[in-house]
């Protein structure tokens, strides 16, 4: 499955360029943070890796052939919560894998222990807080044992304690052998979690570098300004 190689990947819906020739190689370990300003193409990159978006041009190659049917999962910023219990929502990812109902419930109960939601298993998933819903979505993805997990701003709009809990779970999933690629705007989170950073702007990968180097010596001027909190991409009207 790894390395995953993107070569000259473009995505141009209705003539608008969202990804503009992305070249990238992802190896089989670690946590990669995708950073950059809004509209840089971060979420679209994740959707492309996940197979939700078909590139307009370029290639996406998985070691060993075609994109694996199973093994790639994605957790969205606002995860789906069906009108059912926390336990049912956690077990949802196992449904298409042909796992029996009893086994699904057993495994879901186990994973809920690991994300500290076991005591709320019978409650409605829609009554959970934003942080708890994100933990539940991570649990749902984790339960399918993905090789690659894509996280789209999993801690956006969460308070520090909820963020810390989500980060703990992300570390555990990584320790379990899952390769993680996630988008974030949180620079502190990047230093706490990340092994490497992909910095994007205007649909292009400006740099892909280890996290310490990215913050100590960013290669591009755009990245340097991004870290400093300046917004060079906001052109005066």
């Amino acid at each position: 499955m790894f390395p995953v190689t993107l070569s000259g990947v473009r995505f141009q819906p209705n003539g608008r360029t969202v990804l503009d020739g992305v070249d990238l190689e992802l190896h089989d370990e670690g946590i990669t943070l995708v950073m950059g300003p809004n509209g840089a193409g971060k979420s679209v990159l994740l959707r492309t890796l996940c197979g939700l978006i078909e590139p307009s041009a370029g290639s996406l190659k998985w070691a060993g052939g075609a994109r694996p049917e199973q093994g790639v999962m994605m957790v969205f910023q606002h995860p789906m919560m069906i009108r059912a219990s926390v336990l049912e929502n956690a077990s949802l990812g196992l449904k298409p894998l042909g796992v029996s109902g009893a086994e699904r419930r057993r495994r879901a109960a186990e994973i809920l222990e690991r994300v500290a939601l076991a005591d709320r298993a019978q409650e409605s998933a829609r009554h959970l807080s934003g942080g708890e819903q994100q933990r539940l979505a991570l649990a749902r993805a984790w339960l399918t044992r993905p090789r690659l997990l894509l996280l789209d701003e999993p801690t956006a709009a969460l308070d520090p304690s909820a963020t810390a809990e989500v980060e703990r779970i992300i570390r555990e999933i990584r320790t379990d052998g899952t390769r993680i690629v996630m988008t974030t705007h949180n620079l502190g989170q990047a230093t706490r979690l990340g092994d490497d950073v992909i910095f994007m702007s205007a649909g292009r990968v400006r740099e892909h570098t280890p996290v310490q180097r990215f913050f100590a010596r960013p290669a591009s001027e755009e990245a340097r300004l991004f870290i400093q909190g300046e917004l060079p991409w906001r052109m005066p009207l």
Partner: protein
Amino acid sequence: MSFTATFAEAFALIVSLDARVAEIVLLSIQVSGTAVVLGTFIGLPLGAMLAIGRWPGQQVGTVLVNALMGAPAVVIGVIVYLLLSRSGPFGHFGLLFSPTAMVIAQTVLVIPLMAAIARQVVEDAWQRYAEELRVMRFSWWHSLTTLLYDCRHSLLVAVLAGLGRAMSEVGAVMIVGGNIDGVTRVMTTAIALETSKGDLPLAIALGLVLISVILILNTIAHLMRAWAMKRYG
């Protein structure tokens, strides 16, 4: 007979559990209840099928379902009559002028309505969930069952609409049932007949029961939905 006296007699028929009234009410509930159960098992999955994915004939199906939603009951009645009559393709079953024929006609009547409502409800959910279901590699069938399950409380509206249409229609059951006393006479056909005969107390008694049944079922459904929304969000 005065207006007040007519209503007083109608109430007396209900309170005394008049055998004729009870028989007609029970048959109505059996026929319409069965039609709605069948309509639920056919119409809701059909609506969900039209809502998700893309397949040949989907657009045509959607237009057809929407158009048939408002089809006059008498037209449905005539079509089912032709199908079940001795010279029709299903004539050898001998179903015409039986409660089964009435169930068939009402089922045909409620399916488009229930499917159209289900399509709208499920399509809204599909637009929200499609990406995640695709990420989880949900098959078309798994997506359909999951969405129907998620929307189950909202789909009560479709079931209620079907029940309302089945119980209140008169044209289809009159044509395929024949309004035979003690065999195929239901509330709506009895009301029409008794009114034409001038037996207004019985017609009003049946009308009051009909409205009460629909009101009670709607109240139960409303309470169930309110409970479910509170429980599951």
